[in-house]
């Protein structure tokens, strides 16, 4: 099988899953067996594809060309491959977890849920493989629309209100800013393809756009990609917390937010070219906005008692790390951002799985109600603790490496203030995450009699796997670094 | 000729204003008939007997019958409405625009106007040649040169006919009233 075919197969599989689920909606076992099988197959295909990509192949497929130079096409490069691997890998676990959660929770409309879920994964893969801005945009929009039914899954007024905020912010930013930025790029560069070294340099050198214009364009991109949850367009993230927990896991760990920051990263690397950004300094403001998002997100997270809300704000903060890395635009920080996508994905999904497991088992969602739960649910809270470590950036959590690279990046650019921000933020992370397992393990049970036990096996197994994964990533960070290195190297080759 | 035209024009204007002002709808319809009569007289003077003929048949004839028939079914007087300045302004602007547009027009009856000189040979001269001795050039143009327009016109009348049928014909017994 050629890598080109693998791309198509990888993307087709989730759609197959969606159709399968839709067809066998009436028979839950068949439906879900299909889901799992397809998700494993997708991951396998992605791995096969990865062997090609990591061997410096850049397979490319063009589906249809709508206008000259304006097409739906896919090109796989390391960053996207990494993201695809994360998405497809975690999809398997999420699917298993979701089955457990949904059954444990007796949710309605499960068929719709799994269909949309599969479509969202398809969109994530399409975004990962996107060969040009337009394809990325399409995938991005498909993701927005397909996750909307997931957010409003409960169908009550609260869910619909949350869904409205979710869809409203994501669609409006993407249409009003992202689209505008794409058109502008097209106008400037005459192409939308992702090219190593960026496509805007020529336009900038040719005087078609001033530095201020470039800064505005970057701003349009950064805010247009609402999924990156850069403040002040982060409101959709907490609003989407009305969704069932597997959805939150999907939204906040794997698919949606990661598509956002991934897009930002990709635009910085392949559209602007991070040398251009660094040279012109157009991203400095973005650094500070990202820094502010990091701090504010963390601070807000501390005030939330609802676990999912706290995690949501934590995500806002963590996403800003990635954006910050992109904005700093040194090769180290870019790699750090790319790594952080992986590290945070694995860590955060664990946290959400835990939150869901707690909810399934104990029907608790507020942190203050979780006193002493750790004894009843040791695996869950153990996993929670491991993931916390990774998110905070302490060894042996994977997050340590990515944060390290980011910190090095700020130091390279002499942004000492931002370096301090990163450090303070890590402290804040400790302050809002660690109390949860401490509360669960260390405090005695409350007065009421509690007879909780662990959530169903289908829930616990995935979360243990991801927790272990987040630790393993610490030891295999080297591989990720190697994988991501070509992104920056290619740029240098072009420069020289 | 101008001695006749000017009174006719004055009467036309007077009638038009009368129609606009009068509240009695029946009288308004009658004035409309008068307006048509006068307009047709002027058309005759303007060398358009065919148009005058038609206007007489339509404006003073069919239209009036229809209006009266409708009034018979509806009601005879108009309720006084409160005066609004907006329509007057709109009308004023439109009228001013039109008057402005006349400034570059060829004068009335100018034989050198584009309309009189352009299709050369003119319809009159051409139709002698084409029509094998059809004296009424208007008919020749109507039915032959621009016969297609007239087909369209017939289609319009046809449309109006079946449209009125669609709107006013009562439904057959056993069908619910289309209300």
């Amino acid at each position, binding site marked *: 099988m050629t890598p080109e075919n693998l791309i198509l197969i990888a993307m087709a599989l989730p759609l197959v899953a969606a159709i399968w689920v839709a067809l066998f909606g009436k028979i839950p076992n068949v439906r879900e067996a299909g889901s799992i099988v397809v998700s494993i197959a997708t991951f396998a295909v992605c791995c096969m594809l990865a062997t090609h990509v990591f061997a410096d192949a850049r397979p490319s497929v063009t589906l249809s060309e709508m206008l000259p130079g304006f097409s739906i096409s896919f090109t796989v490069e390391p960053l996207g491959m990494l993201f695809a691997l994360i998405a497809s890998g975690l999809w398997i676990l999420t699917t298993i977890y979701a089955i457990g959660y949904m059954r444990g929770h007796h949710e309605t409309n499960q068929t719709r849920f799994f269909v949309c879920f599969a479509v969202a994964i398809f969109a994530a893969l399409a975004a990962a493989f996107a060969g040009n801005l337009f394809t990325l945009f399409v995938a991005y929009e498909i993701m927005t629309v397909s996750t909307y039914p997931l957010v409003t899954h409960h169908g009550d007024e609260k869910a619909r209100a949350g869904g409205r905020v979710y869809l409203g912010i994501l669609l409006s930013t993407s*249409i009003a800013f992202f689209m505008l930025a794409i058109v502008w790029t097209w106008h400037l560069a005459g192409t939308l393809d992702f090219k190593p070294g960026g496509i805007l340099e020529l336009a900038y050198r040719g005087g078609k756009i001033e530095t201020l214009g470039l800064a505005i364009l970057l701003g349009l991109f950064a805010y247009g990609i609402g999924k990156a949850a850069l403040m002040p367009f982060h409101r959709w993230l907490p609003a989407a917390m009305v969704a069932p927990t597997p959805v939150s896991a999907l939204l906040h760990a794997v698919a949606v937010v990661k598509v956002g920051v991934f897009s930002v990263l990709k635009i910085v690397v392949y559209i602007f070219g991070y040398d251009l950004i660094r040279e012109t300094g157009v991203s400095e403001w973005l650094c500070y906005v990202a820094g502010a998002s990091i701090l504010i997100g963390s601070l807000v997270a501390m005030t939330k008692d609802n676990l999912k809300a706290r995690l949501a704000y934590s995500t806002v903060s963590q996403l800003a790390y990635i954006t910050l890395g992109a904005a700093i635009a040194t090769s180290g920080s870019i790699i750090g951002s790319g790594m952080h996508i992986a590290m945070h994905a694995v860590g955060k999904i664990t946290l959400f799985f835990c939150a869901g497991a707690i909810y399934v088992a104990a029907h608790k969602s507020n942190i203050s109600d979780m006193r002493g739960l750790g004894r009843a649910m040791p695996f869950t809270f153990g996993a929670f603790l491991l993931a916390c470590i990774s998110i905070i950036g302490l060894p042996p959590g994977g997050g340590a490496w990515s944060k390290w690279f980011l910190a090095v990046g700020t130091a390279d650019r002499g942004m000492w203030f931002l370096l301090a921000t990163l450090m303070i933020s890590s402290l804040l992370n400790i302050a809002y995450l660690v109390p949860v397992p401490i509360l669960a393990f260390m405090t005695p049970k409350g007065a009421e009699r509690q007879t909780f036990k662990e959530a169903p096996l289908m829930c616990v197994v995935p979360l243990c796997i991801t927790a272990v994964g987040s630790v393993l990533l610490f030891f295999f960070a080297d591989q990720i670094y190697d994988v991501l290195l070509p992104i920056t190297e290619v740029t240098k080759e072009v420069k020289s | 000729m101008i001695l006749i035209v000017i009174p006719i024009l004055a009467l036309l204007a007077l009638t038009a204003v009368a129609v606009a002002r009068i509240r009695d709808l029946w009288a308004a319809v009658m004035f409309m008939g008068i307006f048509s009569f006068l307009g047709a007289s002027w058309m005759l003077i303007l060398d358009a007997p065919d148009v005058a003929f038609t206007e007489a048949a339509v404006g003073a004839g069919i239209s009036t019958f229809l209006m009266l028939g409708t009034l018979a079914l509806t009601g005879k007087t108009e309720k006084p409405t409160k005066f609004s300045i907006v329509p007057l302004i709109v009308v004023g602007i439109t009228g001013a625009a039109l008057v402005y547009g006349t400034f570059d027009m060829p004068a009335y009856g100018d034989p050198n106007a584009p309309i009189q000189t352009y299709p050369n040979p003119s319809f009159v001269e051409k139709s002698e040649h084409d029509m094998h001795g059809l004296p009424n050039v208007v008919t020749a143009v109507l039915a032959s040169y621009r016969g297609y327009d007239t087909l369209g016109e017939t289609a319009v009348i046809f449309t109006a006919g079946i449209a009125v049928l669609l709107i006013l014909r009562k439904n057959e017994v056993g069908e619910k009233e289309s209300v």
Partner: protein
Amino acid sequence: MIDFVSQLPILMIVLPLVTAPICVLLGGRQLTYILALIVAWCVFAISLACLIQVNQSGPIHYEIGNWKPPYGIEYVVDALSGFVLMFVSFLGAIVLTYGKASIDKEIPHSKHYLFYATYLLCMTGLMGMCITGDLFNVFVFLEISSLSSYALISLGKSRRAPLAALQYLILGTIGATFLLIGIGLLYQMTGTLNMADIAGRLDVENGGRTLLVAFAFMTIGLFIKMAVFPLHTWLPNAYTYAPSVVTAFIAATATKISVYAFIRLIYGIFTPDFAFNTQPLDSALLAMSLIGIFIASAAAIYQSDVKRLLAYSSIGQIGYMLLGIGLVSVGGLAGGIVHMFNHALIKGGLFMAIGCFALRIGSVKLDDLRGAGKTMPWTSLAFTIGGLGLIGVPLTAGFISKWMLLTSSFEAGRPQVAAMMLVSSLLAVVYVWKVVETLYFADPSDAAAKAKEAPMSMLVPLYVVIAATVVFGVWTDWSAGLAQQAAEFLFTGAKQ
């Protein structure tokens, strides 16, 4: 042997025109339907043949009655009119195919043959306006189409239908009379009615003021017919209270033809130089269309009747077409033309879906449509896809035209227009989503819960149209290519 190929342009118009009286002569319900259906598809086939012929061998001129243009009436099928004729006849045919069940329900049976005759006449009028090269002939066919649409609209079941028709009649007649005044002034200054001839004989030095007024009057007349924002008052009522089939047909075609006539007016009769350089029409058009888009879209948001909502959206969409004209570039014009086509498909599809709802639920109030997504899944899906097209989501037809408009507004040096267009799309998101949310995520209303899926005879044509919106959103060589060709033709034609 009769050479039918050379007679195609006239057959296109005369065939339905002759069939209408034949319908009346025959009477009967099924027979006339079949006859009308056959003729409608024949007309589509003919128009397609004409379009192909035009693409291969340039514009077709057909002198009716064998009289040379300044004397007789001439038909001109060029790239633009061929394109418009094609989609008008297509929508005419497909809506008729779709409409049997709906007509059976909404129109008294004894009037069916009259209905079909009127429908064919309406089609004749619209196509006649499009194909003719003679200015006065435009007026005549405009009246044929208008009169028949007044009659068709008044057939609605609501008691407000006759009033809506009368309001349309009054405004429409004012519009037509303004057009007539303009034609008269133009004729007086040039001595001819043939469009190409007029264009050649315009004498701006000596008749500037009269020509200006003629242009203004014709423009306003056409604006009324196309329901540009401040002159739109007839449209919402007319669309809301007309029978479903009529709404689908008229909404898809009537206003587009007026836009077409306006394009002809600017590019075929007056020169763009006259319209845009001596008068600041381009800025005026842009301002007007943007204001129209915003106000109409905002009004659409507040509607509780879906038909009315879509009607307001139509007013907004007309703004996009004018925007394309106002950009005064090949790209912008092509965008406007493509948007005519795409919007015809999308609006046709949406109103067809609404017709299905009306058939099964009996009402198209938002309240009554609650939860129809469950009982009428296919119709709801069609509506959703159409709605996405209306928003301009990528991979739907609506996107392509918006993209073309956006890029050309950048090229025209008006990025602010592009930005406002994008912001206005957000309003479209809101009103479309309002309906979609009601369909899928609200508690079913009584009527919707009892409804069953629309019959196959309606769904199949509906899906043909909806599929077309997707197909032309992905493979745009054909639609955008033809529009591009037409726009280039207009521009180069104007330069000669």
